[in-house]
């Protein structure tokens, strides 16, 4: 891996390909684009705070600029770091609610049927828009009745029976909204001879805290996670996550945006599809697939952070291994939600405009189901198209 210099922005040769690939610049002319918001802007910001342009806060942090950059400039990091340093916007109730996925999730899962029913009501969503500036058209993910952690704790004895063990970083979404994905992961891991454990203590990875301006809290949670993952690493336990954004945040954002040293554990954090694909690719491990499974046409959507990690290929190759799965690879583009970004009233139009070409491509693909490794892409696509979205691991599990 290349060592990035402290003057990383100077590696920019101004070729502007980042701006060509920026989903926000494509739909919103008020956004200066990654080149100007990033390396150009950083140089000017060294002159003084008067050169900080709040327009850069329109950045989604999708990192597609970094993928496009031929000069290895960490454009997204530069923009986000400037935001952290200079933004004068103070997070409010909305940001607090959207960012504290752990807190909100742990309350909501206890009274899930009520929360789900309430947030499903249009008048309620209108009130939410008025009070919270969360767009009324946005459909909230449903909360589960009971957490994944609770379920897995009940499985502890059964999981301990497996000779090989791994630690699962489930993330807030699996824990509070979709424990079924976690259960699917456990099923696949068990089929490969791995028992699944929880980390000693797991906190939300913090991605929503970072993007909503709660950097200190994000650092606190990150330190807890780094500690837990370090312990797992010392016990020779691989740490595997199903969420691409959690994986990316743990591996890269902790260092780049929070300034925390995660170098000792970074390589021990893996994405579920990559972990499984590599096990199977070795040839030593095999999965027994159902012989009578139905034909399924799956359109795979590459989430932005999957692209940034360069790991899209693992999910695609894994899906291709499943008999009777017909894979359609959608052109790689941002769906527009970018975590909590698309929830905010002022971003709703931009968010939907960014996603529009993807939504059209999905409808045109004639797929049975869409698959992606990112939960927020799932919400966006399910809200904006007629299709259901499943994680590759859920599809894989259903064929076992």
């Amino acid at each position, binding site marked *: 891996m290349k060592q990035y*210099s*402290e*003057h990383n*922005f*100077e*590696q*920019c*040769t*101004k*070729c*502007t390909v980042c701006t060509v690939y920026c989903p926000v610049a494509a739909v919103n002319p*008020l956004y*200066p684009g990654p*080149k*100007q918001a990033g*390396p*150009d*802007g950083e*140089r*000017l910001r*060294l*002159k*003084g705070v*008067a*050169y*900080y*342009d*709040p*327009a850069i806060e329109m950045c989604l942090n999708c990192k597609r600029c970094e993928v496009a950059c031929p*000069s290895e400039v960490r454009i997204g990091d530069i923009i986000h770091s400037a935001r952290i340093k200079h933004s004068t916007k103070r997070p409010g109730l909305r940001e607090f609610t959207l960012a504290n996925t752990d807190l909100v999730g742990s309350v909501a899962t206890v009274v899930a049927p009520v929360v789900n029913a309430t947030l499903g009501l249009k008048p309620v969503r209108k009130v939410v828009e008025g009070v919270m500036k969360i767009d009324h058209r946005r459909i909230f993910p449903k909360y589960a009745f009971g957490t994944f952690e609770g379920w897995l704790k009940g499985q502890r004895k059964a999981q301990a029976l497996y000779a090989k063990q791994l630690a699962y970083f489930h993330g807030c979404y699996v824990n509070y909204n979709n424990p079924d994905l976690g259960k699917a992961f456990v099923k696949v891991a068990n089929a490969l001879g791995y028992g699944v454990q929880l980390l000693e203590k797991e906190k939300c990875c913090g991605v929503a805290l970072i993007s909503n301006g709660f950097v200190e809290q994000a650092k606190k949670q990150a330190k807890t996670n780094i500690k837990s993952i370090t312990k797992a690493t010392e016990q020779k336990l691989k740490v595997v996550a199903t969420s691409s954004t959690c994986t990316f945040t743990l591996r890269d954002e902790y260092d780049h945006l929070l300034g925390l040293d995660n170098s000792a554990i970074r390589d021990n954090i893996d994405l579920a599809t990559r972990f499984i694909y590599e096990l199977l690719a070795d040839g030593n491990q095999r999965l027994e697939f159902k012989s009578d499974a139905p034909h399924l046409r799956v359109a795979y959507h590459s989430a932005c952070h999957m692209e940034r990690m360069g790991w899209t290929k693992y999910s695609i190759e894994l899906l291709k291994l499943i008999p009777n799965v017909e894979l359609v690879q959608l052109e790689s583009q941002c769906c527009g939600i970018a975590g909590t970004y698309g929830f905010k009233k002022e971003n709703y139009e931009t968010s939907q405009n960014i996603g529009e070409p993807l939504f059209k491509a999905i409808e045109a693909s004639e797929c049975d189901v869409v698959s992606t490794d990112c939960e927020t892409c799932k919400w966006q696509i399910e809200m904006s198209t007629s299709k259901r979205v499943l994680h590759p691991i859920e599809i894989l599990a259903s064929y076992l």
Partner: protein
Amino acid sequence: MNNQYDVIIVGGGATGAGVARDCALRGIRALLIERADIATGATGRNHGLLHSGARYAVNDRESAEECIKENMILRRIASHCVEDTGGLFITLPEDSLEFQAKFIDACRAAGIGAEAIDPKQALALEPSVNPTLIGAVKVPDGSIDPFRLTAANVLDAQLHGAKVLTYTLVEQLIIESGKVVGVKTLNTLTGERGEYRAQITVNACGIWGRDLAAKAGVTINMLPAKGALLVFGHRVNNVVINRCRKPADADILVPGDSITVIGTTSSKVPFDQCDNMVVTADEVDLLLREGCMLAPALEHTRILRAYAGVRPLVASDDDPSGRSVSRGIVVLDHATRDGVDGFITITGGKLMTYRLMAEWTVDLICKKLGVAVGCTTAVAPLPGSAEAEKVSKSCKCSVHCVSAKASVENRHGERAKDIDNSTAAKRALVCECEQVSVGEVEYAVNCLGVKNLIDLRRRTRVGMGTCQGELCAARAASVMSEVAGKSAAEAKADLKSFIGERWKGMSAVAWGDTLREGELLSWLYDGVCDLSNLKEQK
């Protein structure tokens, strides 16, 4: 056409522009003639350091006193050209702290506020400073933009009735009965010849003043001393860093606008090389090596370009380095010195003292012309610095270009209000690195005497950023051809000359990212735009 003036000033550097302004403010009809663009000689080829005078305090008390006085004056009258960065004189383990004590005493004696601070304090004040320092002294250094300063002087001279001719070469002095009564000129853009008359002709040509004096049969012994400098890609330091020792090579690091400059070297050059300054590999090595002693981060910082200027020193002794020559101001009244009436040479000095040089010159002019008006340039603010506090309310920019607004106000002070950025088309950026809009280019062409892209760079910073014109040059050429009514062929020739000039500065430091940038520059302009002779210019 009336070609009669009171005074003709030859040379459009800071000094010539300052003389023209001072004349105009005193009601003297002045004509300023410059063979190229303003600030193309030594004025535009130095650190851009607003000297506190501390550097001269030990060896040259007179210069030190002049500097600190002018420093305080420039902060007032040229606030939009000056940055109050403060300065540090650092002592490294290989330097002597005894010099520091002597230095502080000398500064105080010259009236320069010099305060020794703890090395830790110095590091807190300027984190880029060499952390091994053993001593630091705080002085009131700053930075000054010489292009902006000269342009503001020219603009004010014009606003007060002076006439300015750029790209006009003085081919001959008109001498009648032993008196210089005017000049014969050639416009180098149009080929047009002209004749202008005045009671007094002022030679403000810097090192080239020797040649102009020779046209009047007068000999001035000058000593061309070349100084090379490097421009780094961004502001590495926010405080000027000097080495606290006897003045030597490459011991001043100055943050100026969006970049940092290290300099200088000092070497004697032959007169025939004054128009052809090339920075050598040895000079680059020396600058970089010494620069890293001031701020170690320079080792990993992209170097944008190298450039060199020629100090117009008047030879007073045989010192080969040209360093112990006083930077003192030299006003030569050739009537008394050589028996040539109507001819004055102003030389020596330095950018810092341009205003005082002008004052002394115009005082002499007044005496000769019998004008009894005093000098006001020490108190009258330059255009752009008049209403600094009102600046941020004056510019009509929309909310979405905060950095462009800050940039244009920084460059033009309250004059930014004269720039039309009212529509999206006018706000569109020509130069993204330095945030120069279409409106600003139009203003520079219409109001600041810009004739070509290189002139535009001096007025607006177009092409001074990281990409060195790679993205902005073609856009600027296009806007300029519309505003100035140039043909496509003229615009293309201008573009070629601009890119050639940018590459000249880059070529001396063309490695790493600068080389990659150069490759892209070449690919765009040679490969895509087919500026076919670009290779020859390299």
